[in-house]
C-alpha cells in the first residue's frame, strides 16, 4: 500500500513535468531544457533574496488560497517572458539550436538565482499542516502524498476539459497536430504558443510547490532531476502526445519505486542504471513512443 502511494506520488511529479515539456514540444518542436529552472524559480519567488540557510519568507506568509495562485502565476509569467524574449526569435531554427538556446536560458536563470540566494539549500516550512500522516486501509500515508495524487488527477481532468471543450484548447490541439495547417485555418500562432508556455510554466510551478512542501527545503538544483526524468517520460510517451507523456510519467515513477523494493540489496544502489536500461529497451521496441502522436512520424 505504501509502495503504491510512493509510486503514484513520484509518478505524479514526473507526469506533471512531462506534460509541461510535451505541451511546448507539441506546438513548436522545442525541447525546453529551461523547464527545470522554471520549477526552481517559481518556488524561489516566495523568498526574499538572502544567503542564509534559513529562508526569509516573503510571499510565503500568504494564506494558501493566495499562495498557490501566486506561485503558479510566477511560473507562468517567467515561462511566457522567456518565450517573448528568447524563443520567439528561434521560430525558424532547427531543434538542436533551440535545445541549446533553452539550455543557455536555463543557465542564465539558475545563475541569477545563485547570485541572489547562493547555492546552499534552504529550509522552508511550506504548508506544514500537510505533512501529517493519514490512515488509509491500514497504511499510514503522509497527507501530502494523497494531496499530490489528487491534485495531479484534478489537474489532468481540468487540462483535458480545457483542451477538449474550449476554443483555445481546440486551437492548441490543432496546432500540435499540424502547425502550418492550423495557421492557414486562422489559428493565431503566437497566441497559441504563448498559451502553451503559460500552461507549462504553471505546471512547473505546481511541481515546485509539491517538491518544496515534500522535502521542506528549497535548492536551486531541485528542478533539474525532475526535469530529466520528465524529459525522458515525454520521449518514451511519444513526443507531442499528452496522454503518452502522462502515462510514461506514471510508469517511470512506478518503475523507480518498484525496482527499489524488488532488486536485491547489492544491486539497489544501481537502481537508476536499471531504470535507464528499461528506458533504452522501451525506445528500441517503440522508437515512436508508447502512444505515438500523429504528425511526428518520419515521413518519406
Amino acid at each position, binding site marked *: 500500500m505504501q509502495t503504491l502511494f510512493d509510486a503514484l506520488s513520484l509518478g505524479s511529479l514526473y507526469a506533471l513535468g512531462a506534460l509541461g515539456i510535451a505541451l511546448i514540444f507539441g506546438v513548436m518542436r522545442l525541447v525546453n531544457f529551461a523547464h527545470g529552472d522554471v520549477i526552481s524559480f517559481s518556488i524561489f519567488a516566495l523568498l526574499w533574496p538572502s544567503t542564509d540557510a534559513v529562508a526569509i519568507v516573503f510571499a510565503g506568509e500568504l494564506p494558501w488560497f493566495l499562495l498557490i495562485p501566486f506561485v503558479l502565476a510566477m511560473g507562468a509569467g517567467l515561462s511566457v517572458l522567456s518565450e517573448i524574449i528568447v524563443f520567439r526569435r*528561434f521560430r525558424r531554427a*532547427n*531543434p*538542436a*539550436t533551440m535545445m541549446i538556446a533553452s539550455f*543557455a536560458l536555463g543557465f542564465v536563470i539558475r545563475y541569477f538565482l545563485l547570485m541572489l540566494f547562493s547555492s546552499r539549500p534552504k529550509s522552508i516550512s511550506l504548508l506544514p499542516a500537510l505533512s501529517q500522516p493519514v490512515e488509509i486501509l491500514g497504511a499510514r500515508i503522509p497527507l501530502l502524498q494523497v494531496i499530490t495524487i489528487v491534485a495531479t488527477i484534478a489537474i489532468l481532468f481540468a487540462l483535458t476539459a480545457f483542451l477538449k471543450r474550449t476554443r483555445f484548447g481546440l486551437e492548441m490541439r490543432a496546432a500540435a497536430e499540424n502547425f502550418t495547417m492550423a495557421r492557414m485555418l486562422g489559428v493565431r500562432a503566437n497566441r497559441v504558443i504563448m498559451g502553451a508556455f503559460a500552461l507549462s510554466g504553471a505546471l512547473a510551478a505546481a511541481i515546485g510547490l509539491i517538491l518544496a512542501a515534500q522535502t521542506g527545503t528549497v535548492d536551486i538544483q531541485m528542478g533539474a532531476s525532475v526535469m530529466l526524468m520528465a524529459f*525522458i517520460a515525454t520521449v518514451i510517451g511519444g513526443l507531442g502526445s499528452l496522454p503518452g507523456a502522462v502515462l510514461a510519467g506514471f510508469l517511470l515513477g512506478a518503475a523507480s519505486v518498484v525496482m527499489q523494493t524488488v532488486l536485491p540489496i547489492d544491486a539497489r544502489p544501481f537502481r537508476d542504471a536499471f531504470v535507464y536500461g528499461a528506458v533504452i529497451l522501451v525506445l528500441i521496441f517503440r522508437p515512436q513512443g508508447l502512444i505515438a502522436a500523429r504528425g511526428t512520424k518520419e515521413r518519406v
Partner: protein
Amino acid sequence: MSVIRRTISTPILLTLILIAIALIAVTAGSRPFNQTVIDIFLRVILVVGLYIFIGNSGVMSFGHIGFTCLGGYAAAWLTIPPMMKQTLLPGLPDWLMNAQLPYWAGAIFAALWAALWAAMFGKILMRLSGIAASIATFAMLAMINTVYSNWESVTAATSSVVGIPIIRSIWPYLIAAIIAVIVAWLHAISRAGLALRAARDEPTAAAASGVDIPKQRLIAFTLSGVVMGMGGALFAHSIGVVTPDTFYLTLTFTTLSMLVVGGIGSLSGAVLGVVILSSLIQALRWLEAGVTIGTTTIAIPNGLQEIALGIVMILILIRRPAGIMANSELRWPRPNLDAANPQNPGEDPRPQTTQQQ
C-alpha cells in the same frame, strides 16, 4: 582533383590555429594561463569527438561524455601507482592492480576501452534515430554515471580518485588535439563519412542507394568513442583527480554548446566554437577577478560571468541559428574554383535540418 587535395586545407588551418594558441601560452609563460590553454585543447578533443558522430550523422547525442568518463577512469586504473591503488580501489583485478603504464600508453588503452563500450552500446542504439536516439544516448550516460558513482571497490564511488600523474606540459595535449582533428577529417572524407552525411541529408535516398545507415552510424559512434576516451584520459592527467560527476551533465552541456555555437555540421565550427567560447569564459573570469585601469579596479559581481555567457550564447544563436561556421569549413581562399562552383564542391549545400522528427 582528389578529395584529399581539395579538403586538406581545413585540417592544416585548424592545426595552425591550435599551434598558434600553444605558442601564445609558451610566450606568456604564466602557469594559470598554461592551464587555461590545456583546458582549451582538452575541450577541442572532446568537441571534435562529438562532431565526428553528431556532425556527420545529424543525431544529437547526450551520451558521449560517458565515454570520456570511461576513458578518465581507465587512465586512473592504469597509471596510479600500485601502492595507492591497493588502498583506494581494492576491488581491481590483480593484473590491473599491478599495472603502471606511462601516461601515453594509458591514454591509448583508455581510448580503446572507451571504443569497446561505444561499439557495444552503438550496436544497440544505432538503429534508433532522431530524438529517440538522443534520449537513448542520454540514458546510456546516466547508466554509466550511476555505475561509476556506486561501484565502491573499483571506482571509489562518488569520492575522488587521486594520485593520477599530472602532466603540466602543453605539448601532449596539443598533439592529441591535432590527432583528433586529423582523425575527424580523415573520417569525414572517407567512404564511411560520405555515406553517413548522405544518410543525414537524405535518409531515404541514401538507404535506397545501398547505404547501411546503422552500420555507418556505428562506425562514427565507435570512432568518436575513441576520441572521447582519449580526451577523458588526458582530462584525468590534466587535473590529477577523477570523480563521476566531473563527467556528467555540466561537461555534456558545455561541450554540446560549444559544438552548436560553432556550427554543428562543421569541423572548423567545432574547433572555433571551443576557442571562441573558451576565450569568452576566460575574459569574463578576468573581469570577475578585477581589471586595474590606472588606479581603479573594475570588477563585475560574482555569478555574472555565467549569466553573461548564457546571454552571449543566446545572442550568437539568434544571429546565426546554424552556428558561427554554419556548414562551411575554413579553407584556402580559392577564387577561380569558388566562382565556378559557388556552393563549395566538397561540402554539402544542405537545408538547415540536422534532426529528423
